[in-house]
């Protein structure tokens, strides 16, 4: 199995542990990643608010850069925001006849060309559909027995494009969590919105969305995420939110790749639980891996 890898800016910055653990887990599962050379920002949620063409041109440039590398047809993106931006560029170029030449005009001076053959895939899509829970289960050496894990999908890997899961009642993480030996914590917040960049632009509104999610997770041992923005929102404000609510809403938040890495018996340097802002070490205590602070 081969994929062209688009890490995106967050995975180079505040969520390096997602990048590190994704690479380690995929390697352990015999998946070959080739990083797209000289990839650039996908535009995040900012480009769409500034210019419509820019919001397509920035991700499309990376699809074109991927096409130039090899005959592999799948781009793998672990960040849901990057995934959606790249996916939208893929879809618009495929369905809007005028869009493809327009986009190619934007980056032709760089010698890049997009033909439309690439498929953009989210990490969760690749893990659940291509690799599958069975293959993961066969590789588990340190089962996470007795742990109750709440799967959090957020929005952008599910909506608006229906690709690999039910956009309102997602289930793709269940089998993966069970494959690690952990239990799926039953809750109704898996597909809820974390407020995205509200924490920066409308803090009070963002806080109430995150508070509702943290309250619903009470009783779980950890929340599992597949997006750096969701992840940051869910873990970075737990102290403040707990203070506001006069209640302890602190809970470990780990990336799906970190969870799988623990069960596969990968080392701390492969999954870096010490980089999480929440108490991920508490979650790993009792398993073979103990994060060092």
């Amino acid at each position, binding site marked *: 199995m081969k994929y062209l890898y688009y890490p995106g800016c967050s995975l180079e910055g505040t969520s390096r542990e997602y990048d590190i653990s994704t690479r380690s887990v995929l390697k352990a599962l015999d998946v070959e990643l080739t990083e797209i050379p000289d990839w650039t920002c996908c535009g995040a949620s900012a480009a769409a608010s500034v*210019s419509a*063409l820019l919001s397509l041109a920035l991700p499309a*440039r990376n699809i074109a850069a991927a096409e130039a590398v090899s005959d592999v047809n799948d781009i793998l993106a672990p960040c849901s925001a990057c995934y959606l931006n790249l996916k939208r560029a893929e879809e618009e170029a495929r369905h809007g006849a005028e869009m493809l030449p327009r986009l190619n005009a*934007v980056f032709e*001076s760089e010698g890049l060309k997009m033909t439309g053959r690439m498929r953009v895939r989210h990490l969760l899509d690749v893990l659940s559909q291509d690799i599958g829970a069975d293959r993961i289960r066969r590789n588990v050496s340190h089962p996470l027995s007795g742990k109750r894990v709440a799967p959090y999908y957020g*929005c952008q890997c599910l*909506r608006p494009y229906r690709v690999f899961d039910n956009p309102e009642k997602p289930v793709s993480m269940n089998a993966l969590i069970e494959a690690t030996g952990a239990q799926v914590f039953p809750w109704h917040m898996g597909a809820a919105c974390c407020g*995205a960049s509200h924490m920066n632009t409308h803090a009070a509104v963002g806080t109430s*969305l995150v508070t509702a999610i943290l309250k619903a997770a009470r009783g779980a041992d950890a929340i599992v995420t597949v997006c750096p923005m969701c992840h940051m929102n869910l873990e970075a404000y737990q102290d403040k939110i707990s203070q506001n609510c006069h209640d302890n809403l602190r809970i470990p938040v780990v990336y799906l790749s970190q969870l799988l890495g623990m069960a596969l018996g990968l080392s701390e340097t492969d999954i870096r639980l010490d980089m999480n802002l929440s108490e991920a070490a508490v979650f790993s205590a009792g398993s073979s891996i103990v994060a060092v602070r």
Partner: protein
Amino acid sequence: MKDAENVQLAEALAPIRDMVKACIQCGTCSASCPNAFAMADTPRRLWRMLQAGEVQMVLKSGSFTLCSACYTCTLRCPRGLPLTDAMSALKQVVAHQDALRFASTTLFYRKFMESVRRHGRVRETEFMCLYLTAMKNPLLPFQFAPLGLKLFSRKKLDFRPPSKGGDARMDALFQKVHELENAP
């Protein structure tokens, strides 16, 4: 003056009005919106204002800045309307109007893009500096301080000069986009 402004605004909003032309005011979007509780005008009401040509009202409301692009309304609208895109288009109009009232939202995005134009990738530290400087709100940095300290203690804040250098490497792409969008 006021009239000319209105005409200009109506022109800018015309394509968005078309997006929601077929709205039957069923309210599914508002009921699905996780941010509706904080909006002065719910999504359904914004569409009604657009349909009625109440362009100043739409802008004054500003409730579209509270859309967090969760796509639930788009998924559920019985008329299949591109509602998240409509919200995003409203934000774009505001970005161009440069309305002072929406300074925090638009500046955040503009500073972000500035960082991309310079480095190709986002340098989170630089981006926050640009943003906080542009806001000129002396209290704002404190709002971000607890998070900054947390990130710092996990060695997640990068104060080195960007690896790709401030070489304005994306200038050509940004320039071309600007040309194409402003072509007659």
